[in-house]
C-alpha cells in the first residue's frame, strides 16, 4: 500500500506537449479521480505512474520511493484497462493467476521456474500451486465470479469481464490501483452497479486508487478527491462537494455540473457585507462571495434557483421576474428554461405531485439566494 506523489510532471512528444507540470499528492488509501475532457492528459498522467510512458521531466513517488527508473513490471501498480485487456488465450482463472505465476517465474529454483513457465504456456503443462489457487479463488469470490473460474474470458458479459480485470489487478496486492475509464464500455445501469462495487471494494481494502474518467458524475460519486485537468494541467484539486460548490473557474464549474454562467461587473459591497454585482441593467444581484476583481463570472447552479410560488412571502433582494420558455419533465425534477432580461437561465426544481407545471409564456418570479450566487 502506498501514497502517490507526482511532482512537476512534464511529458513532451515530438510535436505536442501532453503534460505541462502536473502535481499530485495522493494519500494512502485515498480514492482519487483524474477528471477532464479527452486529450487533457489524464490518461498520460496515469500511464506515467504505471510506467508505460517515460516522463520528460518530473518525479513520481510511490510510497516514499522515486520510481522514475523502476520498469513498469516492478512498480506493483495494478491497472484496470479501458478495454479490460484480458488475455483471450487464458481462462478466467489463468487471467487472474497471471501476476502470481509471473512472480513464481522470477523466484525459486531452476526446476520450479521451468515448471512455472510450462504452466504459463499451457494449463496442460502444470497445475497452479495451492497458494495461487487459494488466492485466485478468493479474489474471484470477492468479485462474485468464483463459479466462472473455468470459463473463457470471451464467454463472459461486459460486466463480468470488467470484474475479472478488477480481480486480476487486485490479486497482486498492488500498492496502487489504477483504473483507466473502466466503466466506459458498460451500459448505464451496469455502470451504476459497478460504481458502487468498485467504491465498496476500495473502501474494504483501503487501497490507494487512481481513477481516470471524463464522466463528472462518476468522479464525483466515487472519489474522495478529484483533480480536474485541462490541456495538460491540473485546474483544480478538491473534494467533490468543494468542487461543486466552489469551482475555481468557469471551466471547472461547467465541467462538474450544468450551470448558468454570465459575465458581471462588481459594483460595491453593501451593508450586509455582500458583494453587489451587475449582470445587465435590470439584473443586479448580491453574492456572499468576496472578490477583489471588478470583472467576474457569475455562476448559479440550476437547482440553486428558487421559483417563488406564493406572492405573500416577500423577498426583496435577488428576486427577479422571468418568462418561461421551455419546461421539461425529467422525472424526479423539472427543468425550466427561462429568460431573465434577455438572458437564458436554467432552473431545476424538485417535482411535487400536487403542484402544476408552468407552461411556456408564463411569467414567474425567481429567487437567486445570495449564498448560491458564486463569483469566479
Amino acid at each position: 500500500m502506498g501514497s502517490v506523489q507526482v511532482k512537476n510532471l512534464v511529458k513532451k512528444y515530438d510535436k505536442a506537449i501532453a503534460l505541462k507540470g502536473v502535481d499530485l499528492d495522493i494519500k494512502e488509501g485515498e480514492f482519487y479521480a483524474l477528471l477532464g475532457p479527452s486529450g487533457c492528459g489524464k490518461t498520460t498522467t496515469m500511464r506515467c505512474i504505471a510506467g508505460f510512458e517515460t516522463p520528460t521531466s518530473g518525479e513520481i513517488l510511490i510510497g516514499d520511493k522515486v520510481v522514475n527508473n523502476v520498469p513498469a513490471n516492478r512498480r506493483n501498480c495494478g491497472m484496470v484497462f479501458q478495454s479490460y485487456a484480458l488475455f483471450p488465450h487464458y481462462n478466467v482463472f489463468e487471467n487472474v493467476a497471471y501476476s502470481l505465476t509471473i512472480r513464481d517465474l522470477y523466484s525459486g529454483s531452476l526446476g520450479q521456474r521451468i515448471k512455472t513457465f510450462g504452466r504459463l504456456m499451457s494449463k496442460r503443462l502444470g497445475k497452479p500451486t495451492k497458494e495461487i489457487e487459494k488466492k485466485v479463488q478468493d479474489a474471484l469470490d470477492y468479485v462474485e465470479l468464483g463459479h466462472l473460474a473455468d470459463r473463457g474470458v470471451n464467454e463472459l458479459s461486459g460486466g463480468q469481464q470488467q470484474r475479472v480485470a478488477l480481480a486480476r489487478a487486485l490479486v497482486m496486492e498492488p500498492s496502487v490501483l489504477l483504473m483507466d475509464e473502466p466503466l466506459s464500455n458498460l451500459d448505464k445501469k451496469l455502470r451504476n452497479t459497478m460504481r458502487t462495487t468498485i467504491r465498496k471494494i476500495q473502501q474494504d481494502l483501503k487501497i490507494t486508487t487512481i481513477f481516470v474518467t471524463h464522466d463528472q458524475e462518476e468522479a464525483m460519486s466515487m472519489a474522495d478527491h478529484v483533480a480536474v485537468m485541462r490541456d495538460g494541467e491540473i485546474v483544480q484539486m478538491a473534494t467533490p462537494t468543494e468542487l461543486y460548490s466552489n469551482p475555481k473557474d468557469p471551466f471547472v464549474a461547467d465541467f462538474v455540473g450544468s450551470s448558468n454562467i454570465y459575465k458581471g461587473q462588481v459594483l460595491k459591497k453593501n451593508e450586509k457585507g455582500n458583494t453587489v454585482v451587475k449582470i445587465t441593467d435590470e439584473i443586479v444581484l448580491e453574492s456572499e462571495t468576496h472578490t477583489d476583481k471588478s470583472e467576474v463570472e457569475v455562476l448559479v447552479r440550476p437547482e440553486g434557483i428558487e421559483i417563488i410560488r406564493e406572492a405573500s412571502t416577500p423577498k426583496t433582494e435577488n428576486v427577479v421576474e422571468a418568462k418561461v420558455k421551455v419546461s421539461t419533465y425529467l422525472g424526479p425534477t423539472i427543468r425550466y428554461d427561462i429568460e431573465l432580461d434577455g438572458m437564458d437561465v436554467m432552473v431545476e426544481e424538485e417535482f411535487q405531485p400536487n403542484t402544476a407545471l408552468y407552461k411556456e409564456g408564463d411569467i414567474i418570479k425567481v429567487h437567486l439566494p445570495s449564498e448560491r450566487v458564486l463569483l469566479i
Partner: protein
Amino acid sequence: MSSVNQDKQPKKDTKFRGWLRTIDSLKVMKWVVYLFFFLFLVLPLVSVFLVSFTGQPVNLLGSLVNPDIMATNIERLSNASFEHYSLLLGGTYFSALQNSLALAIGVSILVILMCIPLAYAFARTTMPYKKTLAALCTIPLIVPTFISAAGFIIMFGRTGWVNTMYQSLGFDGVLIDAYSMTSIVLIQVFFFFPFALWPMVAAFKIADISLEEASNNMGAKNWSTMVFITFPLAIPGIISAALLIFTVSFSDFGTPIILAPDGLNLIVVEAYREISGFFNWAGASILTIVMVAVAAIFFWLQRYVTKNMDYGTLSGKPKGTKLNDSKIVTRSLLVFTILVLVLPMSAIFSVLLQSFATTWGTGLLPRGFTMDHYATVFTRSGDNILNSILLAGGALIISVIVATLVSYFVVRENTSKLDFMSSIPLIVPGIALGIAYIQTFNTAPLQLTGTAFLLIVAYAVRRMPYMIRSTMGTMMAIKSDIEEAAVNLGASKLVAIITVVGPLMLPGIAAGSILVFVTVIKETSITVLMAPSDWAPMSLMVFQNLLRGEVYTASAMAMLIIVLVIILQTAANKITKNSLY
C-alpha cells in the same frame, strides 16, 4: 597486496552482475536479429553488387581478417567499371526484362480478380463444403511449379490428353500449346493464387463487422456495403497480396525453365543460364541487380499505397462475425470456386496418373498401371525424403524465431529499419540469393558453402518475408494494452512476449509456418544451386529425374511430396484450430 586483490575480485563480480542486470534482454534479441540479417542478407547482396562491377568474386569478410585478401579485393575494385552494364542495352537482357515484367503484372492482376470472390466466399459466407474447398485451394501451393509444368505437358503437350480430346472433337491443332507464354501464365495464375487467397481471406475477416452493420443500418443494401465498406477495408490486404504474386511470378523459375519456348526470353532463365552454363559472374550479377531493382520499385509502390491505411484490430473484447447465407450468393460462389480448381486439379491428377502408368503415349489414358515407380522411389530415395523434412524443419525454426521477433520490433517499437531489411528477400530471386551465398561463404573466415546449414539459412531467409507478413498481420491485430497488462502484472517485456503475445500470434505463426514448410519442401532454384549431394532433398531428385527424362519416377516422387505436405498441413491445421479463440 594480495588482500587488496581479494577485495577487488568480488567487487568486479558484483559490478559485472549489476551490468548484466541492466541489459535489456529484448535489446539483445534485437541485436541478434540485426546480426542475422547483416550476415546472411546484406553482406551477400553487397558482394553481388560489387561483383557486377568487378566481374570477379570479392571476399568482404576475408578482407576484414586477412590483409592479403584485402589487397586483392582493393585491386579488383580499382578495376571496377560500368563496362558490364552496357550488356543491358543490348537485345537479350532487355527483352528478357520486358517479357518478365509483362508476365508478372498480368499474373498479379488475374490472380487478384480471381481471388476477390474466393476470399469473400471463404471469409464471409456460409458457402457449402468450405472446409473441403479450403483444403483443395491450398493444394496448388504444395505443387512445385516444375511439377505443374510437367502436368501441363501431360495435358497440353503434342500428345497430351486434353489436346487429344480437343482434336477428337473435330478441331485442328492444339487447344493450348504447353510450351508457350499462355501456359506459363495459366500455371502461375492457377498455382500461385493461394499465396494471395489466404492473406485476402484474413483481410476480409479482420475488417470490422460493426462498420458493415452500421452501413446496413444506415440503409445500404448488402451489395453496396460489400463494395463500399467491406472491400475498401480489405484493400491493404489485397494490395500486399498483389505484390506478393508479382514477385513470386517475377522470380518463379520452375515454370519457365521447363515451358519457355526458344523464342521466349525470361530474365530468371537468362540469369540461371549465365551462372550454371557459362559461369558469367558479371552478367548474372547484373541481371540480379536489375531484378532486385524492379521488385524494389513495386515494393515501394505497395508501401506508398498502403501507408495511410489502418488495420482492423482485435482487442481484448470479443466480436462476432455475421456470414452471408444468401443461397444465390453461396451457390454461385461454390460453382466459381470449383471452376477455379478444375485446372490445377487436372494437372495434379495427370501427374498422379502418370506415376502409376506403365507407359502413356497418345490417348486419353495410360496403357496400363503399375506400382513399380513407387517401389523405385522408396528403395532408392528414402534419404531424400528425410533430408527434405530435416531441411524444411530447420528453416522453419529459424524463421519462426526471427519472424516473431521482427514483427514485434516493427509493430511495437516502430523499427522500420528491420522491417525494411526483412522484406529484402521478397525482392531477391532464389538464384540470386544462392549465387550470393556461394560466393560470400566460399572461403574463410566463414566457410559454409556446401553445408546443410547454409542451405537451411538460405531457405529461411528466402521465405522469411512470407512468415513475417503472416506474423506481422496478427501482431498488428493484438492491441498493445494486452501486452501492457502483462507488464503491469509483473512480466518483463520478454516474458510478456513469450507468454501473451506469442500465444496470441499462434494462428499467424502457424499459418506462416505452413507456408514456409511447404515452400521450402518444393523450393527449386536454391536447392538446385546449393544442396550438397549427401543432403539432396526430394525436390532436387524430382528435378533431376525430369531432366534425365525419368518422367514416371519423377511423377511418383512428386506425388510423394504432395501427399507428405498434405499430411503435414492437416496436422498443422489441427494444432492451430485447438488454440484459436
